[in-house]
């Protein structure tokens, strides 16, 4: 069984091993850009084609939760960077603390996402047989701002009058919404798993100024996931926002 800090068989030096790991993660992130990119492209093209339906879709998203989540994620990138720094300067205890903070913030993000998803489910905005953009305005739920809801109702009714296919186009928006945020959330869950592994290793004191590659590499991954969200948030929540 290998132990951290030891040279793996295929490498000549620790330096080579570290350089390889970092380059490997960078190359992987490039593939992720292309992966998300396909969906971003599809979203952009469809937004242009169906701006009314997509506009309504955007406005059903809770901007407070979305903005809050953005702040949470940015802070988690900060704590992650602090964890890498702590490892580099040898403050082993801080490494664990910052990693746990990152994991905590990530979990908050995922929790908020779950709340948002449940909301969409309750409002019949999940693509499928029961998808109906008229449902929520016609069925207020506890905690709804009735004035806002009324504005949404007017908007939806107007859209239907102009384009009876609003439900189909709206489904496109929400398919992409769930697809993109779902893929993002999947990456965060994987990131959380990686963080758990790192936390366990940090408790055993494995990360030192000489050896902290796993922290650095997971850090790269985490920052990337953060950047994807920074693109997702304006695209999904902010464009065409008027309420």
């Amino acid at each position, binding site marked *: 069984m290998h132990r951290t800090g030891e040279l793996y068989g295929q490498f000549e030096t620790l330096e080579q091993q570290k350089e390889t790991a970092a380059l490997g993660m960078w190359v992987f992130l490039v593939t992720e850009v292309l992966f998300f990119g396909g969906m971003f492209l599809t979203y952009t093209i469809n937004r242009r084609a169906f701006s009314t339906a997509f506009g309504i879709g955007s406005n059903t998203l809770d901007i407070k939760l979305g903005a809050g989540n953005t702040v949470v994620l940015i802070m988690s990138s900060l704590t992650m960077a602090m964890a890498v720094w702590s490892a580099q300067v040898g403050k082993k205890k801080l490494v664990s603390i910052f990693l746990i903070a990152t994991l905590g913030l990530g979990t908050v993000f995922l929790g908020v996402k779950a709340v948002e998803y449940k909301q969409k489910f309750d409002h019949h905005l999940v693509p499928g047989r029961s998808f109906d953009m008229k449902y929520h305005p016609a069925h207020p739920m506890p905690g709804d701002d009735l004035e806002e809801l009324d504005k949404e109702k007017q908007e939806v009714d107007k859209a239907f*009058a*102009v*384009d*009876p*296919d609003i439900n189909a186009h709206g489904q496109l928006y929400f398919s992409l919404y769930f697809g993109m945020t779902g893929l993002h959330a999947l990456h965060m869950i994987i990131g959380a798993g990686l963080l758990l592994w790192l936390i366990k290793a940090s408790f055993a004191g494995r990360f030192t100024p000489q050896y902290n590659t796993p922290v650095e590499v997971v850090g790269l991954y985490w920052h990337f996931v953060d950047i994807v969200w920074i693109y997702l948030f304006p695209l999904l929540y902010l464009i065409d926002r008027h309420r």
Partner: protein
Amino acid sequence: MQSQLPFSPDQASNFAPHVDDLMLFITLICLFFAVAVTAAIIIFFFKYHRKSPNEVGVPIHGDSRLEAAWMIVPLILAMGMFGWGAVVYVDYRHAPPDALDIYVIGKQWMWKAQQPNGLREINELHVPAGRDVRLILASEDVIHDFFVPAFRVKMDVVPGHYNTMWFRPTKPGRYHFFCSQYCGTNHAIMGGWVTVMEPADYAAWLSGSSGAEANPVVAGEKLFAEKACVTCHVGNGTGRAPSLNGVFGAKVLLADGSTVVADEAYIRESILQPNAKIVAGYQPLMPTFQGQLTEEQILSLTAYIKSLQSQPVPATGSGIAPTTEKR
């Protein structure tokens, strides 16, 4: 006209000789290079065959001028191929204005064609020789492709889009046409025959069997009333919507200041997504007819609206952009 190339179909359209000439041109260039390289390889293969077991070759690492030469010369030839092909293609993608319009609908696994007077054909297409013919292609299900080898032309038939193709038949006869975009089980038998007739024979054929077929213009006029289009699109320009007299083929002025030519695609879009382009001075009131009209009905309405080209255009109440120059 004889086939110019061995192994080629009849040349029966204006494009065929050009495509065959292009084929010959590219074949000759490629043949030259293929023969030259193959000959060099064969010659070297024998001339420099190893003479003794320990022999090595003469190390020649490269020659930049040679590299430049065999990059630049092929590039020039490639640009020639590109240029000539582009000229033919651009011509093909721009049908002449007074072409005879025939509507063609592809569906799994048959073709329906509708002649200008409404005469319908299934898996057959009759066209007059010497006349520019434009096919307006629509699909009712998956992507198909209308391919006439003797004419050297094809175009995909894509659901949700109109595609057009044109040709001028030059030689009377019967020629295969094929579906050439895989479309499911019977893709291979989704074809038929194009019959090119002398203009007089074509005219005779056209009028001879018009029988019970509905003229698309007449059908379109009926639909225009049935679907209540006429209540807003009043001919004298006094309705809630612009008059459609003379609009087909004209430039329409839109609310955002831009202009668009009112062609088949514009008419279709206006029927299915009326708020995509609002005419200047009008409100977005028109409901959509998405899901309420078949492709054929849309084509009939288009044919009717085209027939209104000859109607008097009202001074106000039409969406046509003021012209400062002749169209």
